[in-house]
């Protein structure tokens, strides 16, 4: 399942960010052939549920690790600095059809995966000694890559959806350090909130 995101995320992100934050990617025609490299897992939905549960189970710990590593004022001003007010975050409708939910899940995981890449890159510079945070960020990104692959497989095989338009969050590379920390904290707060809803919906 991890074959879809084989370490080319940064390249993809650069390409996508040229279009600006939140702008959708060019949509692949619907009738494009839906081809996956490997056959999907027999119990794919169960695997997706497990991955969601895994992410949901570790999201809060990741959030805590992150804001603790940033130092004051982050731990004591979570509502102001780490509130989940990410404006361009992809929506999710828990009462939709499975296809809709899978498409929305795909967008969310793609968005989160890219944002986690930014956060990981920034934190390696800003907090080079926070090894446990780096480890947790990498582990979360790994699960997301697998989940994205599984969701795409499911969409492909069952609903014949070959591509999904995705949007990414703002690039933080040009922002000041305090703003990078804050955006990362907001993103992880949003992630913690959203992943709970998504895991419940599946």
């Amino acid at each position, binding site marked *: 399942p991890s074959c879809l995101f084989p370490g080319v995320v940064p390249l993809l992100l650069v390409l996508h960010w040229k279009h600006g934050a939140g702008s959708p990617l060019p949509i692949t025609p619907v009738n494009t052939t839906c081809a996956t490299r490997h056959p999907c897992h027999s119990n794919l939905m169960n695997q997706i549920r497990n991955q969601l549960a895994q992410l949901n189970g570790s999201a809060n710990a990741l959030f805590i690790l992150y804001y603790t590593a940033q*130092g*004051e*004022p982050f731990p004591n*001003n979570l509502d102001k600095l780490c509130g989940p007010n990410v404006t361009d975050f992809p929506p999710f409708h828990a009462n939709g059809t499975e296809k809709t939910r899978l498409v929305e899940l795909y967008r969310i995981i793609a968005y989160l995966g890219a944002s986690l890449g930014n956060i990981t890159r920034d934190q390696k510079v800003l907090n080079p000694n926070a090894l446990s945070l780096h480890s947790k960020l990498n582990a979360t990104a790994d699960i997301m890559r697998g989940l994205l692959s599984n969701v795409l497989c499911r969409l492909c095989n069952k609903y014949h959806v070959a591509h999904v338009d995705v949007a990414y969050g703002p690039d933080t590379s040009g922002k*000041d350090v305090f703003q990078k920390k804050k955006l990362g904290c907001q993103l992880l707060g949003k992630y913690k909130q959203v992943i709970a809803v998504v895991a419940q919906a599946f």
Partner: protein
Amino acid sequence: ICDYSVVPLSSFAVCIKCLGFDLSVFSEPLPLAPESLEVSVNSTHQCLHLQWSVHNLTYHQELKMVFQIEISRIKTSNVIWVENYSTTVKWNQVLRWSWESKLPLECAKHFVRMRSVVDDAQIPEPKFWGDWTSWEEVDVRRSLGPDPLFVFPKDKLVEEGSNVTVCYVSRSHQNNISCYLEGILMHGEQLDPNVRVFHVNNVPFIRETGTNIYCKMHQGDVIKGIILFVSKVFEEPKDFSCETRDLKTLNCTWDPGNDTGLLTQLTPSYTLLESFSGKKAICTHKTWCNWQVAPDSQEMYNFTLTAGNDLRKRSVHLLFNLTHRVHPLAPFNVVFKNVSTTNATMAWRIHSVGNYSTLLCQVEVCGEGKVIQKQNVSVKVNGEHLVKNLEPYTEYAAQVRCAYASHFWRWSEWTRHNFTTAEAAPSEAPDVWRNVKSMQGHCVVTLFWKPLSKLQANGKILFYNVVLEHLDGPSTLKLLSIPAPANGTELILDQCSYEIHVTANNSVGSSPASVIMVSRDPGSKDVGEERVKGTKRGFALSWKPQPRGVTGYVVEWCQCPGDPLCDLRWKSLGPNATSTLVSSDAFTPGVRYNFRIYAISTERIPYLLERKTGYSQELAPSDNPQVLTSNLTASSFTLSWKDYPAESQPGFVQGYSLYLKSKAPQCLPGSEKAVLPDNSVCCKYKIDNPKQKTFVVENLQPASFYEFFLTPYTSVGEGPLGAFTKVTTPDEYSHILIRILLPMIFSILLIMILCYLKSQWMKEKCYPDIPDPYKSSVLSLIKSKENPRLTIMNVKDCVPDAIEVVNKQEGTRKSLTDTEPAKHSYLYVLPTEKRYPGPGPCICFENFTYNQAALDSAACGHVPAPSEAQPNQLGLVTSSEHVLKALGKNYVNSLGEIPAGETNLNYVSQLASPLCGDQSSLPTNPPEPVLCSEYKMQMAIPVGLASPPSIPLLEEGEH
């Protein structure tokens, strides 16, 4: 940080001079004023960049000018900076100047203007300032965006201890904004209604990842912040030094000092600049840099090492002569030639340093880890040195290093090489000792010798030669060669008078001989043994000096006294010695060591002088004696422990302690109260004589219970606490009773045994089954009282009518509980109508055991005739009751008073027969064939009266 560079504007300008213009030709000089002033902002570095140009210059004209720059903040009248910038201005040149603001530029408007004056010798006096340019306004706040709050400067990098100014810009006029540095409230000053400024002085280093500064707007829950990166102060490089190893390359090294931080902006860069040559080298390493020496024989070098990061630059200088900084490479090809027993020649080569240079080399020779020789040698290319005064067959380590001879700067590294000198003959005779035993007329001599030390051996000892010279008889020599590493040999000699020479041999030669005499009488007189007290250092032994005729002394002992092999050790001493300290790491506490001190006579014959024994450290006894109790009386008992090996204890046994427990509250005389390790109280007898092996405990109470425990003690303490032995004293009179009772019991037993053995005789004598009527007192009574004529019936007169036959199973035993009486069968010999009562005809029968008496008495008993038996039919009485009744009656009758007129006689108790077993065990249910008939018809019966074939003795199954 701010860039001050000046860049020419264009290279294709019109050559005014070529066109014939010149300033000097003008009657009135044209105004030279700054024009086209542009101001830009670099927020990252908080710099204002100014850019302008000066018109009216002719082609190729260069003028020195001074530009006065004024900077105002907030309003034009608030001038905060005035600076005169001097530079040479060329034609068509764009001039640039930068200024770094302490206050973040976003926090306030800034205004810039300038004017100029020509300060060039070409221009005659008077000099005057030109007009000011118009104010250029710089207002960064316009481009900040719509956020309600901003904090500046962003991501500023400063050194620890510097001063930083922080400000916030808010969109509202409300002043309910608080700012914090790492959670601590900061106090600032209001710059304008929307801007507040905070001065952070002497900023501390908190962490490499930056210091968080943030401002909190209480209305709207807005927090904005910045990260202030504080680095450690960038230090100047230390220990900057350069040297060359080959006069071709210089290697410069330095200590960079502490790290300043993780940020890339803080990563230092190092540059090496040589001022004489003007060359520059960028150093890629943090601590060293190489510099190629110029081939033009530059001798003097003046280096400047510049280290810097984004915050600071540091420089250090070094001036030196190249030949004074020569650090030669280590010598190579070190070899040793002509190695003899005491000398060796050391040779080596050196790396050339320039042409015709001379090196000073230092040679060190080390033996056993110590420097034993040190020598300096001057060397051009090849070095050589003769090392003298060495020991034979010894390994040495030699090392050499070199330095530039002209100007010593530094030694090279050492180059080491080991060598071993040649062997020589052993220099000392081996230390030899012997042990002599006589065995079956022979002398068994065990020779021991100590291996020679390395200095004495002068080589590898290959074998030992033992030469035996017989002294008593004709002088004969016998040579034994014993290969190394043997340290002794055993010789069986027919006689004991020998002179023995022992030499050690290596590949070069033999050592001097060690001579020892062996004689049959070793001169060992009966020498007493003294005790010696050992210490941790060993045993200090002393002996009486011998008046004369002693060539030395030898102290001998066994390292392992308990071991049969003994591990004999000895120590040889000179003739003047009277004491020595025998020390060994192998001396074990608690082990008794026996030392024998021998004196060596002038004839080299050793004789025993003294004997010592002792412990390196005495211990308490390890075990207690097995105590035997004897002579137990009512008031005493004796203890003995004669088998106790006091000599094998781990200390000299000084005596014994006897602990006695009793119920008596007071201790007996001779003892005292003592408390045992288990806190029990008892009485203690102290036996001071270690040779005493018995002890009598007296004054005891009769019939009392005592417990005792005996333990030896040494100077260290007593033996381990063991179990107490219990003793109960007997009653006072019991021994008297025993003296009487025992013989009585013995006598009774003897009588009983005799009685048992002679029971038959006794029975016949005392209580026969058939009493002899003639011996009966009854008869005399009867005779005297009633009928004097009454006589005893003669047996011969009786004719038996029936035979009582008692059958008994041979070999069967009767259970005690089986009360069934024996079955008696009555063999009716005579036919009778009335079996009972009434006298009938008698039958006489022969019984060998009884018959003799019967014959003697000439009597015959009457057998009562069966009362109901049919003629010619011998019935069998099967009722046991009848039998018992009959037996009882008959027996009573036989013993008791016989009524007058009764003449019947019963033979029941005549049945004792050895072949038939126990008479009392009568068969009760004899189902088997008759094995033995206890009665045998003895008397011939008239044929007409009893015919055997017609008599069914027993029916089958009735035995």
